[in-house]
C-alpha cells in the first residue's frame, strides 16, 4: 500500500456554464477498495466518465499509474477495467463470444485467461448461451469478467451491485476482496447503497454538488481506539457511579478502550447493576453520510 494508482488533480468539469465537478482532488492507493458516495446528481458518474476518458476534462488532470488519461489515452487505459453504468453487452452473441470481442482488442489475452476469468465469476455453465437469455445478475458477472480480462491495475465499477440478489451482492463483494488482497488491484466503486459501501470499501469519498466533502476510512480501528460502548441496564435503580457516562434511553453509554470492557462489566456487576446487553456503538456510514451531506446542504442554503 501507499502507491497511488489513480490521482485526480484539481479536476473541474463545466457543462454549459455549470460547474458539475468543482476542483476535485484525491488519490487512490494500490490494493484498496475506494467508495464513491453522494446523493443523486452529485457528479459520481461524471467523475467516473472522466477517469475512463469518456468525457473531456475542463481543467485539471487525471493520472492513472502516472499516465495522463487525456494525453496518453492508450497507456492509461491499459490499466483500467470498468463497467460504466449497466454492463451492456452484445445480446445476440454468447457470453463467450462477448469476451472474445474484448479479448481481441487487447494484446496478450489467451484462451486460458478467458476460461480462468469465467471460472472466477462463476459463469462456466452458461458461458456458451446467448446473453439475451441471461439474468441481470449474470450480465453483471459477465461485465465483471469483461473488465478482468487484461489484468488491470484499477477497476472502476459504477453501481456493481445494481439488480443483484443478496447472494449475488455478497459474491461480488467477496470477488472484490479477493482481487484487491491477492492481486493488489485497486477498485473504485460508486453506489448509493450505504450499507453495501460500508461492507465493501476501505475508504469512502463523499461528494456533493461536485465538491469533495469528506474522505473517511470505513474501519478506523487504529485511529479510534476509544469507542462508545452501549450497556443496556436497569436504568431506574442505577446507583451512583464514579465514572463518566451518558444516559440514553434504557441504557448508558461509556467511552472505553476494548481492554477495559471486562473490567467495566465486573465493576457494574459488583455495584449490583443488572446488565442485559453490552455492545460497541458504531456510527453507521449512513449516520455519517447524512450528517455530512445535510451539513453541506445547510451551508449551501
Amino acid at each position: 500500500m501507499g502507491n497511488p494508482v489513480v490521482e485526480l488533480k484539481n479536476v473541474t468539469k463545466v457543462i454549459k456554464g455549470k460547474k458539475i465537478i468543482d476542483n476535485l482532488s484525491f488519490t487512490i492507493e494500490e490494493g484498496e477498495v475506494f467508495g464513491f458516495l453522494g446523493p443523486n446528481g452529485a457528479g459520481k458518474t461524471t467523475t467516473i466518465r472522466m477517469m475512463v476518458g469518456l468525457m473531456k476534462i475542463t481543467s485539471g488532470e487525471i493520472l492513472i499509474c502516472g499516465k495522463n488519461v487525456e494525453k496518453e489515452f492508450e497507456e492509461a487505459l491499459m490499466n483500467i477495467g470498468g463497467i460504466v453504468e449497466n454492463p451492456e453487452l452484445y445480446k445476440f452473441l454468447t457470453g463467450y463470444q462477448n469476451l472474445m470481442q474484448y479479448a481481441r482488442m487487447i494484446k496478450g489475452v489467451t484462451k486460458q485467461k478467458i476460461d480462468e476469468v469465467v471460472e472466477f465469476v462463476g459463469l462456466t455453465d452458461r458461458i456458451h448461451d446467448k446473453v439475451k437469455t441471461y439474468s441481470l445478475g449474470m450480465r453483471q458477472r459477465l461485465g465483471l469478467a469483461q473488465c478482468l480480462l487484461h489484468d488491470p491495475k484499477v477497476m472502476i465499477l459504477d453501481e456493481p451491485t445494481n439488480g443483484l440478489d443478496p447472494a449475488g451482492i455478497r459474491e461480488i463483494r467477496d470477488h472484490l476482496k479477493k482481487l484487491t488482497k491477492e492481486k493488489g488491484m485497486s477498485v473504485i466503486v460508486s453506489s448509493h447503497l450505504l450499507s453495501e459501501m460500508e461492507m465493501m470499501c476501505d475508504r469512502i469519498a463523499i461528494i456533493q454538488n461536485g465538491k469533495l466533502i469528506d474522505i473517511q476510512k470505513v474501519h478506523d480501528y487504529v485511529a479510534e481506539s476509544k469507542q462508545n460502548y452501549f450497556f443496556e441496564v436497569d436504568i431506574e435503580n442505577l446507583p451512583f457511579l464514579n465514572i463518566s457516562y451518558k444516559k440514553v434511553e434504557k441504557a448508558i453509554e461509556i467511552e472505553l478502550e476494548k481492554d477495559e470492557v471486562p473490567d467495566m462489566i465486573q465493576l457494574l456487576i459488583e455495584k449490583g447493576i443488572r446488565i442485559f446487553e453490552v455492545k460497541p456503538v458504531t456510527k453507521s456510514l449512513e449516520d455519517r453520510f447524512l450528517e455530512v451531506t445535510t451539513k453541506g446542504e445547510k451551508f449551501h442554503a
Partner: protein
Amino acid sequence: MHNLIVNEWINIFKRPGTIVMIALLILCVIGMAILTKLYNHHVHSEKIQWQQQVRQEIKQDQKQLSETPQTAANVKKDLEQKIAVNQYRLDHNIPPVKESTGWTFIEDCSHLISFAGLFTIIIAAGIVASEFGWGTVKLLLIRPIKRYKILLSKYITVVLFDLFTLAIIFVVSAILGFALFGTGDGNNVHLSYTNGKVVEQNIFLI
C-alpha cells in the same frame, strides 16, 4: 486493427438482420433466373433476319434522336451510343445475342447491385448508431484503443461488407447462369461504347 475488423465482422454476421439481407439477395438472383428462363422460350425463332432488324432499329433510333429536344442530353447520348453499337454490329457481322447465356444472365443480375448498395447503407447506418442504442459503446470506448482506430475499423468493415455482397451477387448469378443457360456458343462478345468508340469486350471487363 485487424482484430477490430474481425470483431465488427462477427458483430454484423451474428445478427439475424444480416442473414435476412443476404438471403434476400440470393432470392433476388434466383427470381431473376426463373424469369429469364421463362422469357427465354419466346425468343428462339428470330435468328435469321437479324441484319434487317438491326437496320430497322437504327432507323427508329435516328428518328427518335432527331425528335428529342436538345435539353435531354442524357437521352440523346444513350440513343447515339445505341446507334453506334448497332452500326458496329452491321459492319463487323456480329449478331445481337437474343438468347440468354450464363454471361448475359450475369449482366442482367448486375442490376441487383443497387440492392447490395441499399443493404450496405443499412449496415453503415447502424454500425456506430446501434452501439449507442445498445449502450455497448461505453464498453467499446474504454478499451485502450484510440477512437480513430475504432471508427476506421468500422469504416473498413462497411467497405468489406459492400464487396462481400457484390461477390455474393456475382458468384450466385454465375453459378445459376451457367447451370441454367450454359456458357453460350463462345461468341459472347459484349459491345460497349467507350470514349466515343465501340469496343469489343469480354464480359469480365464491364
